[in-house]
């Protein structure tokens, strides 16, 4: 396969932003920063701490499973800077939520589920990485999404 890569141009998978998550990686994860002075974590990686103004920061991989803290469904297509492969005709409403990652932070992201009946506060979700859009040259832009854990549908 690698040998014929030069014949047919191969599409690449590129992360939507450098340093947002580990990529490529066998088990990709969001990257956060943790302040060495006060222990507060942030996403995305920040060079200084918003809690204590400290500048001694360590980068760490954030947990890949958490609980949904709150959510909504975006029912209409946003204007730019929104940048997807969708058109007004193909746009599908999408879920948005904050996922509480244990010991870390609450991270905002798109949900793979857009049915309000299937979303509720407290449900477990995994952080997954998938193609967000395909560029004209065929490159796949990878972003992160929150996906309900199978069978975690019932709120306690």
């Amino acid at each position, binding site marked *: 396969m690698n040998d014929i890569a030069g014949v047919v141009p191969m599409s690449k998978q590129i992360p939507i932003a450098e340093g*947002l998550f580990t990529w490529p990686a066998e088990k990709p994860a969001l990257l956060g920063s943790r302040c060495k002075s006060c222990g507060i974590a942030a996403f995305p990686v920040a060079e200084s701490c918003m809690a204590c103004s400290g500048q001694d920061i360590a980068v760490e991989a954030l947990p890949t499973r958490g609980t949904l803290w709150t959510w909504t469904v975006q029912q209409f297509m946003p204007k730019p800077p929104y940048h997807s492969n969708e058109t007004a005709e193909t746009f599908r409403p999408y879920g948005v939520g904050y996922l509480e990652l244990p010991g870390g932070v609450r991270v905002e992201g798109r949900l793979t589920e857009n049915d309000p009946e299937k979303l509720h*506060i407290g449900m477990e979700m995994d952080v997954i990485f998938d193609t967000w859009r395909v560029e004209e040259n065929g490159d796949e832009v990878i972003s992160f999404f929150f996906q309900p854990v199978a069978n975690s549908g019932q709120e306690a």
Partner: protein
Amino acid sequence: MDVAIVGIGIHPFGRTPARSGLQQGAYAARLALKDAGVEWRDIQFAYGGSASAGNADALGNELGLTGIPFINVANGCATGGSSLMAAYNAIKSGEHDLGLVAGFDKHDRGAFNADPLALGLGQWYGEVGLMMTTQFFAMKIQKYMHDYGISADTLARVAEKAFINGSLNPNAWRREPVSAEQVASSMMVNDPLTKFMFCSPAEGGVALVLCRADKAKNYCASPVYLKSAVLKSRRFGSFEVFAPSQALQQVDGPTVDASKAAFEMAGVGPGDIDLSQLQDTESGAEIMHMAENGFCEHGEQEHLIATGATRIGGSMPINTDGGCLANGEPIGASGLRQVYENVLQLRGDAGEHQVPGEPRLGYTHVYGAPGISAVTILQR
């Protein structure tokens, strides 16, 4: 030195194709000057702002170039509140005796476009569809409803009340009542908020003339005194708009901080307030801001709103001019509209939307991205 408001002017909110935003600001400024019985050349300083309709100091081209310090203010939805606070401090410090505050705007239709880079965020945040203020408000009220037992009916009643009040206010944009059923069944925008639960970008202008309290009676038979004007920004840990992440441990937001400081400065408490204008860019915001400003406990809104407490004749009238929901949100003018409305009410000049019982203390509150709040307390 205490500070008084001795002149108020407004250009009707909504859509006015024949006038630019700046012209709407000038219209309001001329009315405010006339109301105070002063000329533009008497004004010693001015603060003003507009988000989409040019620099406020271009008002000089309309009103006359007099050489005064005119400072442009840009602070999102809290632009008017910030201008007012700055003018308040300029008089309180003794630096000036008489000044003007103006705000105007003219926005395109549809939701506001926000630029991630301007707010210190990565471009990716906007590309994947997270750069939407409406999502934040929806997620905040979603969590709030879950935690404090607020129902979707209550969201609809807030909008219904706003449109009733708007129908009584000749300067409002939306002047037709809309029933709670119509509000609830309108198109879902960001669950749980429907189309009629959101305000829209709009146009309008407001201006105020401020002076030293000891000279107020020279200009105005019924001056209204600015007992406090406070602006706060977010502290670490508060849940705010345009936040890719937030801390696990939450602290009070800037509204709570500004409210507490304003009450302390004025030497009064929430129970003393006769009417308030609370930022209602959507229905949920008004509900949450009731508690954040100290007017009730979290969760009490469900009962208060169901029993009509927040209506004009109720025990705590809120957004008596129809608020952002019925007036739309011309960003530069919106916060000053609240102050205009309270002055009108405290003078007893609000006509059909007048709060009964000769109100004495009025409260205003605005909230803006990415986490700022401005509060004023006015006293007759």
